[in-house]
């Protein structure tokens, strides 16, 4: 599959995401924030970083980048979209996912190997995992606290839209320990921790993140 990785001004993890896509067995296609088309890709990754310097709110300016108009439209047609960290923030600001991400409750930037439980393996991005699988991948964020009103949280849990939950500790004050969510259709996934930093034994916290990239093909054709 051809997987587009969008680079915004201030993206940090776009090259790691491209590398993870390649290691996952796909062709990485670089997309630019100013692009008006998605170059026919089969899926899109919005990488981590500090797009537009996190000015105003994280992801608030990126939401209006030309490429996002295309991503929002394509996501509506079922294109798999994975937003990691800043990408998750952009997905929430774009209203592709409910809720919002706010400053960590303890105020500090957090960087750690984070234990997660995969709660939903029926999304376009998590089919390589067993439901309930416990994985360790890198977490690094300053504004990773997932918040939403109680009604939205209940709906997310009731409909199985919580994709991953923090296990050993809650690193940022996310409500109900939520680390990642999906939309009703399961094609759009937002995740605060970074699977693209855990795809090679040489670096990072092992290879537990690789499944997010290898599972894509199976999900697309199921």
């Amino acid at each position, binding site marked *: 599959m051809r997987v587009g990785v969008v680079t915004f001004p201030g993206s940090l993890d776009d090259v790691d995401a491209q590398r993870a896509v390649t290691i996952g067995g796909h062709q990485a296609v670089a997309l630019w924030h100013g692009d008006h088309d998605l170059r026919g890709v089969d899926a899109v990754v919005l990488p981590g970083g500090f797009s537009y310097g996190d000015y*105003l*709110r994280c992801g*608030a300016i990126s939401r*209006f980048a030309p490429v996002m108009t295309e991503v929002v439209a394509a996501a509506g047609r079922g294109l798999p979209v994975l937003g990691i960290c800043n990408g998750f923030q952009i997905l*929430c*600001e774009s209203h592709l996912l*409910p*809720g*919002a991400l*706010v*400053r*960590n*409750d*303890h*105020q500090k930037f957090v960087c750690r190997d984070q234990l997660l439980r995969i709660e939903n393996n029926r999304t376009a991005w998590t089919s390589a995992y067993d439901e309930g699988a416990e994985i360790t991948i890198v977490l690094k964020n300053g504004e990773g*606290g997932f*918040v*939403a*009103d109680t009604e939205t949280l209940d709906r997310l849990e009731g409909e199985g839209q919580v994709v991953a939950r923090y296990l050993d500790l809650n690193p940022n*004050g996310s409500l109900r320990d939520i680390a990642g969510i999906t939309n009703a259709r399961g094609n759009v996934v937002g995740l605060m921790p970074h699977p693209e930093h855990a795809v090679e034994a040489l670096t990072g916290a092992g290879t537990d993140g690789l499944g997010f990239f290898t599972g894509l093909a199976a999900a697309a054709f199921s």
Partner: protein
Amino acid sequence: MPRVVVDVMPKPEILDPQGKAVLGALPRLGFSGVTEVRQGKRFELEVAGEVTDEVLAEVHQMAETLLSNPVIENFTVRVEAAG
């Protein structure tokens, strides 16, 4: 030049870690008696021409779509006398 001010505040039910940090710092600096701090943003928009109802309606739209995130923030719009 007329000025329209948009104040954006975190919703009451949303935890405001920045406000909490300020609240924690005040007693350390010898300021007492403050029981709660909420931190928000203030936008000052210089408007060309008169501030009509249409202009205000447009500022409301700006506040809803860009200046605030309605999921976590409330906003108010007011016109400030030219100074």
